């Protein structure tokens, strides 16, 4: 049976379910939305996997060959080689960017992610002892800034998870490496706070749709939030870090329940498991001890799980009520 939209509309008009005007309006509306996305007419998943495997083997073999004569190449020759490979990777992705089949889209994402890694290698070699001979601090900050500068436009062109991961990695590395310019030793609480803040800002932008895909963006923001708080908690005075970690965990769980976000729920539970025992040991020390810390963590998790059921039901009922009204 023909299941195309015009055929369906004809059948519904014949059956008296729609008027001819309604059918025409629906047809116009669907036409205005444009053609449905093309089906994947490229290779099958198995073929794609075999293709990637073959490419990985070729890259590995190429890497081994290059490794044999790498030391015989001058510093700037090494830079030229890595820059050429990087340009080929990004250029290949650019050439394929307009093809809309899923397999090609994945390939473009992969090529551009590899291109960003190539940028890191190129700048790393350029700032290394064989070329510019920059100090370690400058080498790291220049490399991470270059990664960020390459990742952002590629993400603007293709909002895929891999491109978003590249942006997050570049951003975190740039922020972290910039702090190495602070003279002396910056206490851990001040190293972790900017990372926590970037995570919080990242989540705000994700919730409002600036950063997509949403799940990947959420996971990256939550990861930064947790890592930042954990770094703060390694300080010689960990109280501020632990309080921030607990507040963050509670906030993440509070958002996860009504929104039903599994990503946030997962990170929230991980936060309880990681931070509650640390906080109990720090604030109560020997007076409570390990068994009480574990008991408290377990109770919080069980309580959370029990609390989730009615809340989810309330949310579902509210949604049903709104639909029915």
């Amino acid at each position, binding site marked *: 049976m023909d299941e195309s939209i015009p055929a369906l509309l004809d059948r519904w008009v014949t059956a008296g379910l729609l008027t001819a005007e309604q059918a025409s309006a629906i047809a116009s509306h669907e036409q205005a939305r444009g053609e449905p996305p093309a089906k994947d007419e490229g290779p099958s998943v198995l073929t794609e996997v075999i293709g990637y495997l073959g490419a990985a083997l070729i890259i590995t073999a190429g890497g081994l060959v290059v490794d044999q004569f790498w030391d015989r190449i001058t510093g700037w020759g090494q830079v030229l080689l890595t820059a050429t490979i990087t340009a080929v990777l990004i250029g290949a992705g650019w050439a394929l960017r307009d093809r809309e089949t899923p397999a090609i889209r994945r390939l473009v994402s992969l090529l551009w992610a590899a291109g960003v890694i190539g940028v890191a290698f190129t700048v790393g070699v350029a700032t290394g002892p064989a070329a510019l001979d920059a100090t370690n601090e400058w080498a790291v900050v220049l490399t991470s800034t270059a990664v960020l500068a390459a990742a952002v436009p590629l993400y603007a062109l293709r909002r895929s998870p891999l491109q978003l991961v590249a942006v997050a990695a570049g951003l975190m590395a740039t922020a972290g490496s910039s*702090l190495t310019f*602070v*003279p*002396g*030793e*910056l*206490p851990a*609480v*001040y190293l972790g*706070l*900017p990372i*926590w*803040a*970037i995570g*919080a*800002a*990242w989540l*705000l*932008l*994700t*919730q*409002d*749709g*600036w950063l997509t895909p*949403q799940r990947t963006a959420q996971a990256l923001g939550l990861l930064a939030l947790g890592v930042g708080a954990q770094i703060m908690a390694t300080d*010689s*005075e960990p109280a501020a870090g632990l309080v921030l970690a607990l507040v963050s965990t509670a906030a993440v769980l509070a958002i996860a329940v009504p929104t039903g976000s599994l990503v946030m729920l997962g990170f929230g539970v991980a936060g309880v498991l990681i931070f509650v025992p640390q906080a109990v040991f720090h604030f109560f020390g020997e007076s409570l001890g390990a068994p009480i810390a574990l008991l408290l963590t377990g109770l919080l998790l069980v309580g959370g799980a029990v609390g989730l059921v009615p809340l989810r039901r309330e949310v579902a009922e509210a949604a049903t009520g709104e639909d029915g009204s």
Partner: protein
Amino acid sequence: MNGSRSRWSLVAAGVVVAAALAVVVVFGVIPYPDPPALADSPDPPVTARLALLTEGRECLVVVEGDGTEQELGCGSRFEAWAVEWASADTLELDGTRGNGQRVVIDANTGDQVGVQPLPEGPAEPIPQNAQNADGDVIQTGNDDGVAWVEVITTDGWTDRIVALDGPRGYHLYDPRWSADGRWLAVRDSLDRILVVDAAGAVPVRVWAEGAGPFDIR
């Protein structure tokens, strides 16, 4: 996600990051103490000498009481994990366990004037002079960003002779007496060697920077 983007979220994200950076700058980036260099203000001159291995333990350097430096030599001959004045004109370098030697060096020319085997058994560093001839002991510490040096006399009296304000984590350590008990050398967490008048009459000054193992005579 509703997919609608508002400027509010951009502003809020910017405020969060800016607030965090403000906290880091205001409370984290506190300037380190910056005492004058001894070479810039040698008056009154320090009546002691400093011997040190540079940070990478590549070179042996002697710094005079007026801040002038003399490099006695560099290279594997001077790779050691401890240095000590053996007399007014000789230095002892403890080699690594690998070469297992205590080398005696002329403190004026850098020539090797003797060599002794290190004691058998576990590595024993050259004894450090945290106690002077009178039995007074020096100790260092840090309270709320104030790095201090105290002298504890044999009668139990404690005298805080140095107190330097700095960021949290700034500290002084590895204090040594000069042979005459008049001066102290102490390392700070920026790997600078500070010279301190034990009587507290002369302000603290930076004697050397980028120092590895050191000793004062």
